[in-house]
C-alpha cells in the first residue's frame, strides 16, 4: 500500500511522561536539548493532569525550547491550546473529538490520532488525519490501561490496510523496533523508554541508525 506522508514527518515520536510536576516542562525541555540535529522527532506533550491555562503555558515554554531543534511539537487532545500556542499540531486520542471536525478549524496543522483497533484505524484514516499511532503493540506499564498488547501482527494488518503513516507504540525497544518497521510501521513512539535523560542520547543514536536503514 502506498503511504501518503506529509512532507518531513519524523519517524520517531517521543511522548511526554505525563508527570511534569508544575507545568514548567523541565523534563520535556531536558529531552529536547538531547535531540540530535540529524534525527527529526515528533514530540507529543501529554500531561493530562494540567488544566488548560497550565497546558498553554507549558506549550509556549516547550515551543521556545524547540525553536532551534529538529522537532515538531504536538499537544495531546487539545486542538484549541495547540492553535493558541502555535504548535505544529495536535494528537487526538481514540476518544477525542472526531478528527474530521478538528480538521475543519485547525487548518493545515499536523493532526495525528491514537487507535487501538483495525476498525478505528480505518475510520480515523478516512477522516483525514496525517498519521495514526497504534498500540499497545508490546507490553508496557504505561499502556496497560488500554488492554493487553496487540502484537506486531495486528500492527501489520493495520499498516497494510490504511494509506496513512502508522507509528507503533507500546513497549517499543531498539530490539523490537525493526520488527515494527518490517510490519510496515512508518515510525515508532514511546513514553517511558525516553524518560531517562541519562540513557536518551545513546538511544537516539541507536534509533537514528535503525530508522535510516
Amino acid at each position, binding site marked *: 500500500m502506498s503511504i501518503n506522508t506529509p512532507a518531513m514527518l519524523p519517524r520517531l515520536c517521543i511522548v511526554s511522561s505525563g508527570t511534569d510536576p508544575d507545568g514548567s516542562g523541565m523534563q520535556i525541555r531536558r529531552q529536547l536539548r538531547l535531540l540530535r540535529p540529524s534525527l527529526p522527532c515528533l514530540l507529543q506533550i501529554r500531561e493530562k493532569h494540567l488544566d488548560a491555562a497550565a497546558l498553554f503555558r507549558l506549550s509556549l515554554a516547550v515551543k521556545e525550547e524547540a525553536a532551534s531543534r529538529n522537532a515538531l511539537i504536538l499537544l495531546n487532545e487539545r486542538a484549541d491550546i495547540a492553535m493558541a500556542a502555535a504548535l505544529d499540531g495536535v494528537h487526538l486520542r481514540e476518544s477525542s*473529538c472526531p478528527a474530521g471536525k478538528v480538521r475543519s478549524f485547525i487548518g493545515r496543522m499536523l493532526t495525528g490520532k491514537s487507535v487501538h483497533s483495525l476498525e478505528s484505524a480505518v475510520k480515523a484514516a478516512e477522516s483525514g488525519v496525517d498519521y495514526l499511532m497504534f498500540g499497545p503493540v508490546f507490553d508496557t506499564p504505561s499502556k496497560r490501561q488500554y488492554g493487553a498488547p496487540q502484537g506486531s501482527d495486528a500492527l501489520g494488518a493495520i499498516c497494510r490496510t490504511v494509506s496513512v503513516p502508522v507509528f507503533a507504540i507500546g513497549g517499543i525497544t531498539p530490539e523490537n523496533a525493526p520488527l515494527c518497521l518490517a510490519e510496515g510501521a512508518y515510525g515508532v513512539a514511546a513514553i517511558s523508554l525516553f524518560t531517562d535523560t541519562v540513557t536518551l542520547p545513546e538511544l537516539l543514536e541507536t534509533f537514528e541508525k535503525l530508522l535510516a536503514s
Partner: protein
Amino acid sequence: MIPSAPFLCYVTDESPSPVDSVRKVLEGGASMIQLRHKSASGEQLYLWAKEMQDLCRMHNAVFIVNDRVDIALAADADGVHLGQEDLPAREARKLLGPKKIMGISASTLEEALRAEMDGADYVGLGHIFETSSKEKHSRPLGPEAIAAVRAAAGIPIVAIGGINRLNAARTIASGASGIAVIAAISRAPEPERAARELVSILQHQQ
C-alpha cells in the same frame, strides 16, 4: 448575543446523561445552556454539544461550552465560558473570532475588569451565595459584589453560586443580567418545574 436580561442559565452537572436535563430546563424557559463536564471524553463532549446546540436553536436559547474552545468550534456552539484556569481570554477570542460569545468567570472586581478588557461578552461572577455544587474554599461574595462590579464594568453580569428561588430576585435587583444555576435545577425532583419557577421569579423582577 447573550439573551436579554433577566435570564436563566443552566450549567450541566457531572451526570452521565446531561442532555436529558438540558431538554427539560429548556422546556422550563432557560435561555442559556452551558455544557460543563470535566470527566467526559472529547468525543462525548462533541456529541453532547451537537445535541444541545440543536435543542437550544429550537428554543431560541444560547449554547456555550465550558473550557473547551475546540469543542465549541467543532460543534459550532454559540460560544464558550472560560474560568481563570482555562485558556487565556485573549487567546480564546482569537480562535473564536469576534461573533462568538465568550464568558469569563471572575471572583473579584479586578478579574471582572480584566475579562472585559480581554474581550469577554459577559462575566460569570461568583460564588455569590454558599454553594454545594463545587468545592469552594473562599467566602461567598454576596449580592453587594454584583452591584460593585455593575458600577465599574460595562459588560453584563451572570451571577453564579448558590442561587435559588429564595435569593434569585435579590440577585437580579443587585444588577445581574442573568443567573446561572447547577444544583437548584439538577438536584430538584422536577428540573423543568424548577427552571420554570426560577424564570417566573426573574420575569417578575423586570
